[in-house]
């Protein structure tokens, strides 16, 4: 049998299922984003976080506990947060942590791994995800904004220092809509407008990611990856590659990971941690906000870090 056999009907079936599963979460993220845009004044977000930069990053990594968001939605939300004045490093931390450090994902991980050390898997996923997210936040803090953000995002923020912590604020009053005088109806309409705009913008990338994942899902002979399960390093890398290609949602990917019984525990952990932070659709989505070089560096950095951490964990378990 050939390693590649494409059938449009099967592709369509898989493609639709990924879209149907992802659209509601994307829509939720867009609506949150729209509401934030129309109803939350810029300074509110910056005031919510501690003035100490390091503390702000650490706290941002936990915000998913209050504002749970999967990876698709979090990209939309942080784009809005950045424009609203959230420090970029804190926004990056939230973006990476919220698909993992949130109660929905923790619960789904625990449920999916019942019979397979669910407490250990859930705890390790949350802790490793959180630590990686704040590490990336601290690193991002050292990078100039013009090397971090897309050129279309950059003009809407300016770096200024608040207790040695770079924050982004609207460039001028003209770019920031004054919400104080608007009626509720006007704010509502603006939130609808912003939500729709965000939704269509990100849905574009979801469609592309879902299409690529569906080709992989249906046309490629997946028996080819099975022998990789026998070696821990290879199994870790192959599970991460698979997760990257599949572009699953972090709220449900644990069910997929748990089904790979022949793969070692560490490989499944790598699948869960890396995939929620970086996959094929995120590769596109992140570029809505961040520069391509940063996105690729982020991907490579996360890949190396997750491999090393999971290799270390595999020796302990």
């Amino acid at each position, binding site marked *: 049998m050939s390693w590649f*056999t494409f059938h449009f009907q099967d592709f369509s079936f*898989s493609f639709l*299922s990924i879209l149907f599963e992802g659209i*509601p979460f994307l*829509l939720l993220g867009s609506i949150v984003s729209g509401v934030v845009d129309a109803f939350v004044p810029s300074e509110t977000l910056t005031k919510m976080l501690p003035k100490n930069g390091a503390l702000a990053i650490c706290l941002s990594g936990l915000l998913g506990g209050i504002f749970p968001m999967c990876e698709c939605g979090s990209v939309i939300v942080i784009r809005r947060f950045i424009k609203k004045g959230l420090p970029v490093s804190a926004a990056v931390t939230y973006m990476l942590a919220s698909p993992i450090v949130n109660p929905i994902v923790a619960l789904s991980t625990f449920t999916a791994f019942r019979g397979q050390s669910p407490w250990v898997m859930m705890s390790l996923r949350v802790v490793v995800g959180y630590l990686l997210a704040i590490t990336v936040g601290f690193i991002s803090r050292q990078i100039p904004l013009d090397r971090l953000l897309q050129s*279309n995002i950059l003009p809407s923020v300016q770096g200024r220092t608040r207790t040695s912590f770079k924050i982004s604020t609207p460039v001028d009053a003209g770019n920031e809509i004054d919400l104080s005088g608007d009626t509720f109806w006007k704010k509502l309409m603006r939130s609808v407008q912003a*939500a729709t705009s965000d939704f*269509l913008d990100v849905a*574009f990338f979801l469609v592309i990611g879902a299409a690529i994942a569906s080709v992989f899902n249906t046309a490629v002979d997946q028996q080819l990856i099975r022998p990789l399960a026998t070696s821990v390093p290879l199994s870790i890398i192959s599970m991460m590659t698979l997760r990257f290609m599949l572009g699953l949602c972090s709220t449900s990917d644990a069910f997929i990971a748990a089904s790979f019984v022949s793969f070692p525990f560490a490989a499944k952990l790598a699948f869960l941690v890396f995939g929620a932070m970086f996959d094929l659709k995120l590769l596109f989505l992140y570029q809505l906000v961040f520069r391509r070089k940063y996105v690729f560096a982020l991907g490579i950095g996360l890949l190396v870090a997750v491999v090393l951490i999971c290799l270390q964990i595999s020796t302990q378990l």
Partner: protein
Amino acid sequence: MKKIFSRWLPCATLGAWSAILLFFYFSGRVKDLLHPAFRPYTLIAGLVMLLLAACFVFFPMNLDACADDELAAKSFGRKTYGRLLTFFILLVPICAAATFSTNSYGLSTMMNRGVVDDAQGLKAQVKSTPYVEPPLPSNDKSQPQSQPQYAGVDQTSQPPAPVEDEIPRSKDGNLIVQVVDLLYAAQDSTMRDPLKNQTVEMIGQLMPDTVNNANGKRFKLVRMFMVCCAADARPVAVLIEGKTKPQGEEMSWIKVVGKVEFPIENGRPIAVVKASKVVATDPPAETMLY
């Protein structure tokens, strides 16, 4: 032109997506695509998008006002051809997929995914202790659920319930089971013994068997096992041994009636149904197992 891009195309896109979501939900086709837990979200998302589209129709808005300061030139390209391409990608693939998609995978995709014929390949729920997790539940309404408690009975404290009390029967008196039930049964004697030599009835798709099939009378009865959505569904199969070579087209839906045996092959017990009757049938109300 500006009005088309800022008002009517977003409106049409939202409307089309909403229509597709709602059509799949109300026509029942969403059952083939998503796990029951995710289906209500399809309805909600469809309605919300319909509402958003209606907002664009009745309360004209200008997405450009948004794009000016935030969307700039990513997917919403500032140039006309870029915007057209964006809406083309947003509209055409999903419309084409909705039009041409079937309600199940074909043989080549199933083969690509690898047919699971061992419960270990599904989930590590069967342990080597007397305490056994129940078979994964199925929402297949066409075949009443086998009640799994008989598999999870604590053998040290109470005797196993008679199998005939726990598993529903057809009007012909056959035990109605699912493919996954037999896969789990093959792994654990507490499930295996009560089922051994019982006459069972199952529905699935016909797939040829290419291993250990010298006389050509063996084939596989296969169902897709879904965790979240069809993209993660994997084929699970049980071996059927007929009196003659299997009739019917590959991947056609069939009903098999036969006695269950658990011979040792390749050092492990496997489930084989010695079929006394194989007939074509309609697909079940829910083609996926969960």
